[in-house]
């Protein structure tokens, strides 16, 4: 099934998504990798204000390549999500509903997804040159010292994604290989 999704996201729109569904996402997306997640959770621990509001937000685990003159963004595919596993439950429990990355998540993250009615979407790993085409604008939000890991606000249009882990805990990284192996048995 292919579903259009708009951010900021209403969790009600996530309930019907199932692992394996294809999503076309439009709206603002915030980039954050390990270093930015560390700072976000430190700010939370200190009770300070975050650079963007977590409820309704979409976080994309990406560190794009610099844009050449005339380009909006360079190559912009997902990084391995597992490195964010230590931080994600904290963000999800504060209402952050949609994560985009690649690769399976820890038990703790899946539990937090189910507990909060969130979803984890997969972007195509290693298809950075294609992903850049759906980015309509880029704005550096904060932590420029992190270089490619700084937090940016992207405006995306019809970003092609796959529901990897749905709000009920359905997991394409488990069901996909299992279905294939069943087909060749």
């Amino acid at each position: 099934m292919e579903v259009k999704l708009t951010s900021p996201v209403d969790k009600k729109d996530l309930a019907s998504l199932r692992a394996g569904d294809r999503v076309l996402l439009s709206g603002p997306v915030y980039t954050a990798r390990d270093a930015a997640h560390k700072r976000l959770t430190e700010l939370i621990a200190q009770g300070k204000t975050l650079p963007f509001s977590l409820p309704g937000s979409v976080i994309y685990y990406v560190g794009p390549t610099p844009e050449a003159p005339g380009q909006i963004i360079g190559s912009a595919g997902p990084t391995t999500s597992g490195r964010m596993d230590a931080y994600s439950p904290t963000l999800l429990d504060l209402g952050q509903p949609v994560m985009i990355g690649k690769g399976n998540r820890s038990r703790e993250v899946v539990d937090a997804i189910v507990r909060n009615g969130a979803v984890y979407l997969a972007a195509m790993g290693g298809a950075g040159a294609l992903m850049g085409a759906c980015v309509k604008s880029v704005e550096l939000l904060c932590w420029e010292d992190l270089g490619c890991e700084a937090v940016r606000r992207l405006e995306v249009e019809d970003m092609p994604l796959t529901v990897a882990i749905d709000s009920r805990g359905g997991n394409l990284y488990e069901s996909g290989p299992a279905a294939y192996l069943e087909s060749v048995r």
Partner: protein
Amino acid sequence: MRIIQSEEISAAVAALCVRANRQLPPDVVRAMERAAQEEPWSLAKDTLKVLCDNRTAALEHCLPVCQDTGMACVFAQVGQDVHIEGDFSAAVDEGVRRGYEAGFLRKSVVADPLRRGNTGDNTPAALTVELVPGDRLRLTVVPKGFGSENMSALKMLKPSDGVQGVKDFVLSTVKAAGSNPCPPIVVGLGLGGTFDKAALLAKHALLRPLDLPNPDPYYAALERELLEEINALGIGPQGFGGRTTALAVKIETMPTHVAGLPAAVNISCHVTRRASIEL
């Protein structure tokens, strides 16, 4: 004696960094296209086609194939009759600095493993120098992304573990890597030597064109068997299921100690990049 100026080396490395990141080697392109044709699982087939489209889009728009433009692994085979004018390793780093800036490549290197801090220019390179006969200098740049590098492993097996022990180690490493290293992957396997040499052999194995088997028929057969067993795991492209979990397994070996069987698995993704030049 032949003299090579360090400036020549910097210019060559810079050009190789850009080329390697934008243009995949022809053997990798062939392997991906064949996989897309032969993959029986439709979701996996679609995924492989998108990855092939990505490669052509990168070429067309002068973009890096992947945003992780890697740590620049540079392999230099230096002819022993070559004299390099200036500081060789500084010349290589200067090449990386220029290439990553001019090619709009991502700077992904931190200055310290624990204290971090981006160096801002993707230096230093991970440089490996080999002294060879002759008066030529061969440079190969391998931008290595860490999605796959992080999934690599080394194990000091016992001689009694034998070929089955090696197979079990490779398969468990690929299984544990799962969806993380952007499958379909390329597996470099280093066997023998010492702890450090095994790791280097595994990295060297990734330099071999995918359609070139190990010259020793015994290891060529082991490469085929391992590929078949990996592709029976079902992980598939992106980890969404399918046959094509790996494009190739490449083995490099060297003699080892009577008491040892070092085995290193270096995993690379479908964006297995390398570019070479001979000066």
